[in-house]
Structures are given as structure tokens and as C-alpha cells.
């Protein structure tokens, strides 16, 4: 039963592994290149996700709900929005890494508006990424993009909350409540 579930969960991964293994074996070039890409993304993921989940787990057991609710909850206003944007800018990694953080923030009482502002700010305002952007595309490009983006992210947060309602909660990634 358990192995059956594992097989189902990893079906596509196994298929992909067979494709890659076969490609390497017979020297099929597209397969080899895809494997090269995969390695790069895999190490990107493997280097930060386990640590992030460790932090999320510790955050879950240590941080009281009232604290989060007070600072970035429904009644927190613009100061709450400021905090959530600041939190997002200090992070790094691809956007999918922000989903579990959004879940734990939502679970601890962050308002839907702030959760979606967090996702927006995470996608476009991370400081490590900004320094990189400035290096390649120049200060004017990066600054302009940042300044125009902030109101857009906040607007998206407001629209999402209006549409989903104040009681909306992010799920734990298994498609269930908790």
C-alpha cells in the first residue's frame, strides 16, 4: 500500500529519471543537456529548501499566533504591509519557495491581503536579486521597475482579498486545510 503511494507520487520523476538515464547511456544529446539544466535547478533547490523548511517548522512551534495577527493581520493596516514587504525583500530563491512561507504566515493569522503582497514583493523585490539586476541591466532599469512594481503588488493584494474574502487561508501544500 505504502510503496504503491510512493510509486504514484514519484511516477513522473521515475519516468524522467529513466529518460535521463537512457539519454546518458546512449549519448542522446538533448537528454544530456536537459540533465545539465536539471542538475543546476536541483542544486539550487537542494541548497536552500531544506533549511527553509527547518525555519518554517521552528517558526510554527515557536511564534505565537497573536503576534503575527497583530502585526500583519487583518487590522494591521499600512504598517503591516510595510513589514510584509520588508520580510519579502530580505529573502532569496525562486517564487515557489515563497509558497510554504505564505502558508505558515496565513496559518499564524496574516491577512490574505498581506499574504499576496508578500508573494508579489517576493517575486519582484528581493534584495539579492536586485543587486544582480542592477549589475546587468543598470540602476535606472531596476529602480524604475521596483518603484512601479510596489503599487501594483499592493493593488493585487487588495483585489485578491476583496475577491477571496478576509477569512481565506492558504493550504499546507497537500490541498487540505491543516
Amino acid at each position: 500500500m505504502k510503496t504503491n503511494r510512493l510509486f504514484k507520487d514519484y511516477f513522473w520523476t521515475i519516468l524522467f529519471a529513466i529518460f535521463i538515464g537512457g539519454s546518458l547511456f546512449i549519448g542522446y544529446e538533448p537528454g544530456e543537456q536537459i540533465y545539465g539544466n536539471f542538475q543546476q535547478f536541483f542544486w539550487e533547490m537542494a541548497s536552500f529548501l531544506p533549511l527553509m523548511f527547518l525555519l518554517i517548522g521552528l517558526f510554527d512551534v515557536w511564534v505565537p499566533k497573536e503576534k503575527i495577527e497583530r502585526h500583519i493581520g487583518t487590522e494591521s493596516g499600512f504598517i503591516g504591509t510595510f513589514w510584509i514587504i520588508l520580510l519579502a525583500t530580505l529573502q532569496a530563491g525562486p517564487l515557489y519557495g515563497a509558497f510554504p512561507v505564505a502558508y505558515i504566515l496565513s496559518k499564524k493569522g496574516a491577512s490574505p491581503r498581506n499574504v499576496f503582497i508578500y508573494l508579489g514583493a517576493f517575486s519582484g523585490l528581493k534584495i539579492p536579486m536586485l543587486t544582480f539586476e542592477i549589475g546587468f541591466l543598470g540602476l535606472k532599469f531596476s529602480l524604475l521597475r521596483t518603484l512601479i512594481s510596489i503599487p501594483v503588488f499592493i493593488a493585487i493584494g487588495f483585489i485578491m482579498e476583496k475577491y477571496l474574502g478576509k477569512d481565506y487561508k492558504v493550504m499546507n501544500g497537500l490541498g487540505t486545510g491543516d
Partner: protein
Amino acid sequence: MLILIVAASLCLVLSLAVDRQKTYDGCQRGLKMFLNLLPTLLLIIALISIFLYLTPGEVLSAILGARSGFLGVTIAALIGSIALIPGFIAFPLARIFLSLGVPAITVAVFITTLMMVGILTLPLEIKFFGRKAAFMRNGLSFIGAFAIGLLMGLFL
């Protein structure tokens, strides 16, 4: 990355010092969440690897460079939405686009959609936010990214 390692180890040590059982619970919760998501994560990075192979930089700049105006911007937005290219590839690539004469507005829309919209990561996003919210966030972000890019085009 270094900050994350330092922060995580500091929190772990502090947590262990205060309460072993709670630390154990926290680690277990984090680990469980990670293991539950692992199949989807692996699937997504496999998809991204294949997509990146199918659309190398030269192909992208050929597509974007040849079509100017609104069509070029729209194509840039669509590619940016589907692709999930990490910053260390995307920004150098954007610079190459600019040097090849791709209009700044097209490059801006490409960068903003790349960051804000994720079609390939939708399966994962749906698991956290539900179908409705995930589609809506991506839809709004698409419109938002387009708007940001167009506005930037006015100033660049």
C-alpha cells in the same frame, strides 16, 4: 544563501537550548512538509529543465528581435509567463536582448512576467492556494506585469 545557513543554525541552536521537545516537533513538521512537496518540486524542476532546453537564449532573441511593436511585447509576455528562468540566467539574457536591439519595453515585460507569473509552477501553487486563487493571482500578475513593462517603456 550564507545568511540562510547562519539564520537556520542560529535558530536551531537557540531552539534546542530552550526546549528540545519543541525543537524536535518543529523539525519534524518542516521535514514532513518538505517530503510531501518533494514529488511536485522534482516534477516542476524537470519541466523547467525541458522548457529551458527547448528555448535557448539564441532562439528567444531571434523570436523577440524579429518582431517589434505590440506583437513582440505580447510574445515576450507569453514566454515570460511560461518560463521560470532563475535570475542568474535571466538578467544576462535580458542584457543580450537589449544589445541585439530588442526594444527596452519588450525586455521589461519579459522580465516582469518572468518574475511574477508562473505557468509551470501552477500545479504547486494550486496545492497551496487552491485553483481559484492561483489562477487569479497569475491572471492579475500577468496584467500587472504588462502594465509595469509598458510604464517602464515610457521612461526608458
